[in-house]
């Protein structure tokens, strides 16, 4: 794997405000990176700089090792709210987009059609984009970002504005693109990030506060524990008194902390079996990304 894009000390200053402050990260070829952070963290500003729309105040972006390359040749970009010329049909817009990215007329038409079908707009080829719903615009936005088969796909909140069905469909499309392209996308929906991510970049107030593989980040912030569920609250209380480990009781369930690696699941199960109590469920839990997000975002 080689680095397709490298950001060094990337900074954007608006007046007195540092919207993005000294980001350093690398996008490896063929990987997917999720840029996460609360609203106003600087996600859109960062992506706009990578897309060549904004000039960084300080720092640099190098592409394939070249520091001053025109990134526009290599990228596909989907803004958060893509806007289209309402008087063009979907196919006309896609053909124009493909041709502007250097495809000849024949393959532009072919790829435009194929891509629109791929994103599920096969029925709307000849419709004016002005009549499109929000979901359709998002699909068309994705289609125009991938029609020219860019090396790097930059997506700003690709699914945030969609309903659950649309979100699922777009996520599936993105997953099928992972094989062919390097992807960077921003989101504040953690479940999405959990689904297709090799690298996480956590932004908060313009700073990169955490980065690494999903496994690394999880290992760092995880609070592994067991959760045991009993039939009745009394059973939970009883077990809490019997057990050789501290257990927090909440109604019918108990939480056993295992931050230091102990106890083992086997010991817990054995002791539950010996207690003769009405046990419904015992599981090992890890922190969801949501919880990690709250922790990282809440750090002072």
């Amino acid at each position, binding site marked *: 794997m080689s680095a397709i894009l490298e950001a060094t000390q990337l900074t954007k200053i608006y007046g007195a405000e540092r919207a993005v402050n000294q980001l350093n990260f690398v996008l490896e070829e063929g990987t997917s990176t999720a840029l996460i952070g609360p609203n106003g963290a600087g996600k859109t500003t960062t992506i706009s700089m990578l897309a060549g729309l904004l000039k960084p105040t300080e720092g640099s972006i190098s592409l394939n090792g070249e520091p001053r390359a025109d990134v526009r040749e290599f990228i596909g*970009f989907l803004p958060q709210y*893509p806007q289209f010329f309402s008087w063009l049909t979907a196919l006309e817009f896609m053909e124009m987009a493909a041709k502007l990215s250097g495809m000849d007329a024949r393959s532009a038409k072919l790829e435009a059609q194929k891509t629109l079908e791929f994103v599920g707009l096969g029925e709307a080829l000849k419709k004016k984009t002005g009549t499109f719903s929000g979901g359709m615009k998002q699909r068309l936005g994705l289609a125009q970002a991938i029609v020219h088969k860019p090396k790097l796909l930059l997506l700003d909140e690709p699914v945030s504005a969609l309903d659950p069905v649309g979100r699922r469909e777009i996520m599936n499309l993105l997953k099928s693109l992972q094989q062919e392209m390097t992807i960077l996308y921003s989101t504040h929906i953690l479940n999405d990030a959990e689904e297709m991510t090799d690298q996480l970049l956590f932004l908060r107030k313009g700073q990169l506060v955490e980065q690494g593989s999903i496994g690394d980040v999880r290992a760092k912030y995880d609070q592994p524990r067991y959760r045991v569920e009993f039939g009745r609250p009394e059973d939970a209380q009883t077990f809490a008194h019997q057990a050789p480990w501290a257990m927090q009781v909440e109604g019918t369930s108990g939480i056993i902390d295992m931050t230091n690696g102990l106890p083992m699941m086997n010991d817990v199960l054995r002791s539950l079996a010996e207690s003769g109590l009405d046990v419904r469920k015992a599981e090992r839990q890890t922190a969801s990304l949501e919880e990690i997000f709250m922790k990282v975002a809440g750090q002072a």
Partner: protein
Amino acid sequence: MRDLVILFQKEWRENTRNFKILWIPLIFIFFGVSEPLTSYYLPQILESVGNIPEEAMVGFPEFTPSQILMATMGQYQFIGMLVLILGFTGTISRERKNGTGTLLYVRPISYLSYFLSKWKVVSIIALTGVWLGLLTSWYYTGQLFGPVPAGDFFAFAGTYSVWILFVVTIVLAMSAWLPTGGAAGLSLALILFVQIVDSLLGTYWTVSPWKIATYATQWLTGSPDTSDFWWSISVTIVAIVVLIVFGVWMSKRNASKTKV
């Protein structure tokens, strides 16, 4: 320059589908018809409305054919300019404001092609309107007031076309530089206000883009001073080129202001 062809097609589609290609020339044609007709029928119109004493009608001025063409151009110089300014002032600024420009700017387009595609389409529409309007006016003037020699007419309309290109370039350069409101205001100032200033104080100089329209009308009654005329044309063409360079530069610089 291949992107120029692609972007030109986009601009062309835009202006045909929003019917600017139709209604802007129609406005110019309207004045091309109405100016000779109302001048010709003014005595009858006044008579039928009544209340005009007989004696007043006797001294009613007789128009010469060239005066009618000048009056048509006079309408263009105010109402025509307003139509061009308000019709095209958002050509670039609006694409930034509503975010449609974003998906163009992230593609490897050259901003020279981006600006020129718009400049070409707007120039074609404006010149088509002006020429169709002046030809109409020339025809009715010939029918109602007497002939204007073809040579005079083409020198007049050709000279005026240079002014129209200057106006179009100002409007687009301002649109590349400023938001729509500011672009409209500054275009109005540069085209209408400076023209008034130039005609009030302009006796001190003879070479100016804002004198092109005056020189155009002089072809109808004789011919403008050759040196002043060619100097003004040259200065205007240089100004057009400078404004285009400025517009390209501003389009590029302001691309970062597009809504994402």
